[in-house]
């Protein structure tokens, strides 16, 4: 039989039992839909990360206190006090590859303007911060070294804070209160949107680093929670990272066998880390999809076995008029594959629809990958062949006399 005849025959047989067919391929539908949606999400997330790296600049370096090790008790990353203002000054002074450096400390505080108040993150940082993060004021200006030197109570606010405290009014020149201290608003920053971790980057109040040390930090005023640094050339960042790391180890008098107490990373490392997270998610969802495809395949096998039994007499008739074993085998195999492919097609469509729905409702970026769709289709066909083979072989090996007599 030629392929077209076989295909027509299979479609006609399957059309007789639409409900059964659909239930049979449900497993494949779910498996393929999961794969397609997952790949769309994963590709979207990676695209986001890549864009954010591009927007942050690939010459960015971050320094964070990491776990310290005091008498075997290890603290969690970020909570430590191993990075100090002196360390940052030393990096600035002695690491020539570092072009700019901006230590930051932050705390949550209630800020008040008139009768409006808002809980936000108050960050003390140096004017370098605006350069390193390439963050321009949308209105007014940002703070300067003069504000640092004078420890002025001045601030720059993000779009979210401006909206919450002043609504549509112009905040520039107004006064807000942070922990009951009045701060003059110098400017409003341009909108930055979501951070790679999902936070609202515009929900900030920035004040001079020295002001923060004196007025907000309290007893931990010599510690630095987080530091941005940058190099002039993107190619220099790996060398700068090594140099900073070595210098800080020396300053902190760490022995060879001790771990770093300050994490120094460039953004490429961070991107790799988040890609690893994305990859393990992909693996997890992929195995769920794999299990679903397996179950779907078993469903197909079951339905095909029932079909072979139901159609024993048909098989007998076909054999009597001259069908060879191979003809019967191919007929049932094609049926199984067509069944699986229909499931695959529905799955691709549902997966695509799910990805679209997700991106519409949550705002996540999703990217439909035609390669993934083609692969899912191919895998469906493979499932059809694999799980359809045994039932088809049973059909092909029927004894024509028995099959003809079957009621």
């Amino acid at each position, binding site marked *: 039989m030629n392929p077209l005849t076989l295909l027509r025959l299979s479609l006609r047989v399957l059309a007789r039992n639409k409900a059964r067919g659909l239930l049979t391929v449900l497993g494949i539908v779910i498996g393929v839909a999961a794969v397609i949606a997952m790949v769309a999400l994963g590709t979207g997330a990676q695209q986001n990360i890549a864009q954010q790296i591009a927007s942050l600049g690939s010459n960015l370096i971050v320094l964070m206190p990491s776990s310290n090790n005091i008498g075997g008790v290890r603290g969690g990353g970020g909570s430590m006090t191993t990075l100090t203002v002196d360390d940052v000054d030393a990096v600035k002074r002695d690491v020539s590859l570092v072009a700019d450096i901006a230590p930051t400390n932050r705390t949550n505080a209630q800020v008040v303007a008139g009768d409006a108040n808002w809980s936000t993150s108050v960050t003390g940082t140096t004017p370098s911060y605006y350069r390193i993060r390439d963050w321009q004021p949308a209105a007014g200006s940002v703070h300067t070294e003069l504000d640092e030197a004078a420890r002025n109570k001045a601030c720059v606010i993000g779009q979210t804070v401006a909206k919450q405290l002043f609504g549509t009014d112009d905040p520039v020149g107004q006064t807000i209160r942070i922990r009951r201290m009045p701060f003059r608003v110098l400017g409003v920053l341009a909108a930055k949107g979501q951070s790679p971790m999902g936070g609202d980057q515009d929900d900030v109040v920035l004040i001079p680093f020295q002001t923060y040390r004196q007025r907000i930090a309290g007893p931990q005023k010599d510690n630095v929670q987080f530091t941005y640094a940058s190099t002039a050339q993107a190619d220099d960042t790996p060398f700068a990272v090594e140099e900073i790391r070595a210098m800080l180890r020396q300053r902190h008098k760490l022995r060879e066998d001790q771990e770093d107490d300050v994490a120094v990373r460039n953004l490429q490392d961070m991107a790799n880390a988040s890609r690893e997270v994305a990859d393990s998610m992909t693996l997890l969802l992929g195995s769920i999809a794999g299990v679903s495809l397996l179950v779907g395949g078993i469903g197909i096998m079951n339905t095909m076995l029932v079909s072979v039994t139901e159609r024993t007499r048909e098989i007998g008739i076909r054999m009597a*008029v*001259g069908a060879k*074993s191979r003809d019967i085998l191919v007929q049932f195999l094609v049926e199984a594959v067509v069944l699986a492919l229909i499931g695959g097609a529905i799955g691709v469509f549902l997966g695509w629809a799910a990805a679209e729905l997700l991106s519409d409702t949550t705002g996540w970026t999703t990217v439909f990958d035609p390669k993934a769709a083609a692969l899912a289709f191919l895998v469906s066909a493979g499932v059809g062949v694999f799980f359809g083979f045994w039932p088809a072989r049973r059909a092909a090996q029927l004894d024509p006399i028995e099959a003809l007599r079957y009621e």
Partner: protein
Amino acid sequence: MDAVVPPVIEARDLTKIYASGDARVVALGGVTLQVQRGEFVAVVGASGSGKSTFMNLIGLLDRPTGGQLFLDGVDAARLQPDQRATLRNRKLGFVFQGFNLLRRTSALENVELPMLYAGLGAGERHRRAVAALQAVGLGNRLDHLPNQLSGGQQQRVAIARALVNRPALLLADEPTGNLDSATSREILRLFVDLNQDQGITVVMVTHETDVAAVAQRVVQFRDGHVVHDGPPPADWQPAIDRDARGEAA
């Protein structure tokens, strides 16, 4: 000419023994038989007489335990299943008691089925199937499904299917068993006409003497052996008159 044309069926000492554990059942105990081209043979016998086993063997649905079998000159006793399938397709046409048409498949497509496995093209299949259905008087029922046809019409479709590959032998297994007597006579008339007008060799299994008497030759089985081989006994009244021309069909 008879010397050149081989017999359609030549069985020599054909045996079929079913062995299950220690029990051996001799279904066919050495049958030697020839059917010449153009003959109309009725095979009769009680159930368990071996006639069904014999039909399965000459229908190439089963393999003999021993002996020799030639079908239209081809040694058919030791063939593999796929070789038997090919030979069934080319040399044999089956007509069954229960019609055995594919359900939910039109008359036309049922008739096309053997040609599908013979590898004929769609155009040729269609042309020959239409001709075959017209020949059995169903030219106006091409697209009917089996359940839209009467029993007699279904059996005609089956006969058209059996003949469409121009086989050497038409094998009919109780072809009138499911039909009323009027329809039975129509179908028998069709067999006789096919045999007389087109020289088609017919071997027909039946247990009814009036049906068997329509044939020129009756082979009777008992306990796995042929106990009678000759013209129908004189006291068997044929269901139809062989020599009256068919007004049905």
